[in-house]
């Protein structure tokens, strides 16, 4: 059972007792991600996340290391298009420490100028490491081509020129604007007592003043009028194909039918961004697997639809089998997708993914870290109650809804096709 409290300063607190292991997991979520960045400052959300691990007024830089590890704990954070989040999972006696760290992170990070400079090269290294992978590079190009107005087009890591020119004051200003309690959700799951945990939350966060986030009005991506294409030709060994369609937002009535449709096409993944993609989906009977991998056109195929605040992308990613022409692969993939976009999905095909998804939802709730993630994730893009209703929402999806979603969402004119064409190495 989830206990929800909103402090006077606007901080939303979600606590769930789970006494399966002597552990507690804390996640602190901020409603800020790369969609909130302006031109010239792409990547600022992610860079700010990095800076928020580099000491605070009351946690000197040299005391950061070990502050959670001494409780056998683990910490991490991530930034994506709608959110920035920080997490610690450790033994239950570390709860107060974890809350102290998150309160410090919300209010007192240092942004030492030398640290900002040093982190610039770390992040550029992270960007370049990603670019070593042709699949990552193609994904970035496809996303940029699929959106022409909405900031979802920008990579979360940022564009290189922005990373080279942003200043310490840009970072600090962004941090101060967005890291306020009324823009955050604090989640605690584990071997804790709700009342005691709430007492500690109030102690650490109660006096933090709210702030004016001054969120700008969202841009609606104009309707796509025709198919778009992007081709990356670079030295490499392997050809990749990606097909992106505009996906519904999590709150859209089409969202869960699309999740089922994706399971029909590429196998059921589950809906936990933190854990679902770590194990491959059951996909050997999925349509695109049978059409592309069983036939030898491709060595792998995957689909990705993720709950987002605003309409993002449903992306199919395909790796060509060595020696297979991209044209033949693309023809085979589009033939299968166009068949689906005709709406000819069968009842049996929809029933199987529903069963698969029910099992995946059980599997991905196997740790307090994963459960806490889901509460905060869904609250940040809507309501945590969605996390508790995933099974009902999937069970309620009808064949007609899946067929209608396929017709509406997979229309050829609304897709963007990305190709990575490997060029032979230059000696």
């Amino acid at each position, binding site marked *: 059972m989830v206990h929800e409290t909103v402090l006077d300063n606007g901080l939303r607190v979600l606590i769930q007792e789970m006494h399966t292991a002597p552990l507690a997991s804390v996640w602190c979520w901020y409603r800020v991600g790369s969609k909130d960045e302006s031109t010239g400052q792409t990547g600022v959300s992610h860079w700010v996340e990095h800076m928020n691990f580099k000491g605070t007024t009351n946690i000197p830089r040299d005391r950061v290391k070990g502050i959670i590890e001494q409780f056998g704990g683990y910490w991490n954070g991530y930034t994506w298009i709608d959110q920035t989040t920080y997490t610690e999972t450790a033994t239950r006696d570390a709860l107060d420490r974890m809350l102290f760290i998150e309160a410090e992170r919300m209010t007192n990070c240092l942004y030492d100028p030398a640290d900002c400079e040093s982190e610039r090269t770390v992040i550029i290294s992270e960007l370049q490491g990603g670019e070593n992978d042709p699949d990552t590079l193609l994904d970035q190009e496809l996303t940029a081509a699929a959106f022409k107005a909405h900031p979802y087009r920008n990579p979360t890591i940022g564009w290189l020129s922005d990373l080279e020119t942003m200043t310490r004051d840009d970072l600090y200003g962004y941090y101060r604007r967005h890291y306020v309690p009324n823009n955050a959700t604090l989640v605690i799951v584990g071997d804790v007592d709700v009342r005691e945990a709430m007492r500690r939350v109030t102690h650490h966060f109660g006096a933090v003043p709210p702030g004016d986030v001054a969120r700008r009005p969202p841009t609606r991506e104009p309707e796509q009028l025709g198919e778009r294409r992007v081709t990356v030709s670079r030295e490499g060994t392997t050809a990749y194909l990606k097909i992106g369609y505009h996906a519904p937002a999590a709150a859209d009535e089409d969202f869960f039918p699309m999740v089922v449709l994706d399971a029909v096409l590429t196998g059921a993944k589950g809906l936990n961004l933190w854990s679902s993609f770590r194990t491959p989906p059951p996909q050997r009977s999925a349509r695109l697997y049978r059409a592309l991998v069983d036939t030898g056109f491709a060595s792998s195929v995957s689909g990705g639809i993720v709950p987002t605040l605003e309409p993002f992308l449903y992306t199919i990613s395909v790796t060509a089998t060595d020696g297979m022409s991209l044209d033949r692969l693309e023809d085979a993939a589009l033939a299968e997708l166009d068949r689906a976009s005709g709406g000819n999905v069968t009842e049996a095909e929809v029933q199987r993914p529903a069963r698969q998804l029910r099992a995946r939802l059980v599997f991905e709730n196997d740790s*307090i870290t994963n459960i806490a993630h889901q509460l905060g994730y869904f609250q940040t893009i809507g309501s945590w109650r969605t996390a508790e209703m995933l099974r009902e929402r999937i069970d309620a999806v009808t064949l007609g809804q899946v067929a209608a979603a396929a017709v509406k969402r997979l229309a050829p004119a609304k897709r963007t096709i990305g190709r990575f064409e490997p060029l032979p190495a230059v000696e």
Partner: protein
Amino acid sequence: MTTILQRGLAPARTVLPNGTVVIAKHSPTTPAVTIHASVRAGSEFDPPLQAGVSHFVSKTIDRGTATRTAARIADELDDRGVSLSITINRHAMWLICTCLVEDLEPILALLADVMTHPVFPGDEVERKRGEITTLIRQDEDSPATLAAEGLLTDLYGASHPYGRRPRGTIETVETIDDAALRAFHGERFRPASLSLVLVGDIEAGQAIDAAARAFGAWAGPPPAASNLHEAPPATGRRVRVIPMMNKAQADIAYGFTSVRRSDPEYYAHWVMNNILGQYAIGGRLGDRIRERDGMAYYAMSALDANVIPGPLTIRSGVSPENVDRTVAAIDEELQAFSQDGPTEKELAESRQYLIGSMPRTLETNLGIANYLQTEEFFGLGLDYDLRVPDLLSAVTRDAILAAARRTLVPARATVVIAGPYAGHVR
């Protein structure tokens, strides 16, 4: 006879009359069971001229049995939302999946059929050959993979099972046919090669009974023993550059052969590695290369003490202009470590972390299953989780200093750099 320990993880372990080991642990967190089957059929058993057979078997073993087609196997798994993951390491092939408790019996029956009666149909083998070739080609385009695999080749030699590429090469994979796959399966898949771990919401006794029903009738002689030999330690420093000028970043793999898992100095090496390249964000190496010098997104070390002295590997990805500085920084950190050893504070922190993180390691069914397979593989005993705190507490600064002086010697380091780097680091 079934052995049950009452404290700690306290799994139940039994050996079936055919030699199969079954280990079960009741864990009621979710209504699911994780099945972890480990077969002594890793890449060390590849025929010397056919690197990649074990990996090829892992890709094809679930593609048809005497009584089930590939499509039927796919349907039986997919209908239950089960994704069967089959992977190899040097020593073992792992078949791992998680299913709902109510599906345990049919999934165990399916797994037993896949493991005991695969037929390796010709069309499936040809298709998988294409997939494997693609994987090898992708590896050849990855600086991180080329650096890591190149380091192992240079440490152990290209024909040693630790030095060969586990997936084989385009040329060796070309020579592997269905007969080679059947021969490998026949030699390595024996009841006594299998260790089966079941963790989930089922009483241990019931889990063992279910395993016995699925695997108890499997008969066959024990498999041939491993005859891995130790690699001679490096006598000097070796540096190799794999130029990949089209890439954005260079990957550095820097390492040594270390110790056996059974070596009395293993525990000192374990803590040493944690201090050097794991603790918090990459230990001393992460502190230096990422946090202080700002040169890399990652810098860390990994210890693989194994049935022979496995590798201790230091990894970092850096821009080309920082390669020389990063290698120099690693050299300096190792020298400092070998000179003074860890501080008391470092030792206390790492020890506390390694002991304190055990509940987290053992939180999920998969985490427990992995742990129990490691216990079984190295013969650590069912009470190992209870003994770890004392084993780690017994490690002293002097023991770690001795471990560092034995293993972390820059003058005997092997270094491989893959990426857009044309320099001449030494």
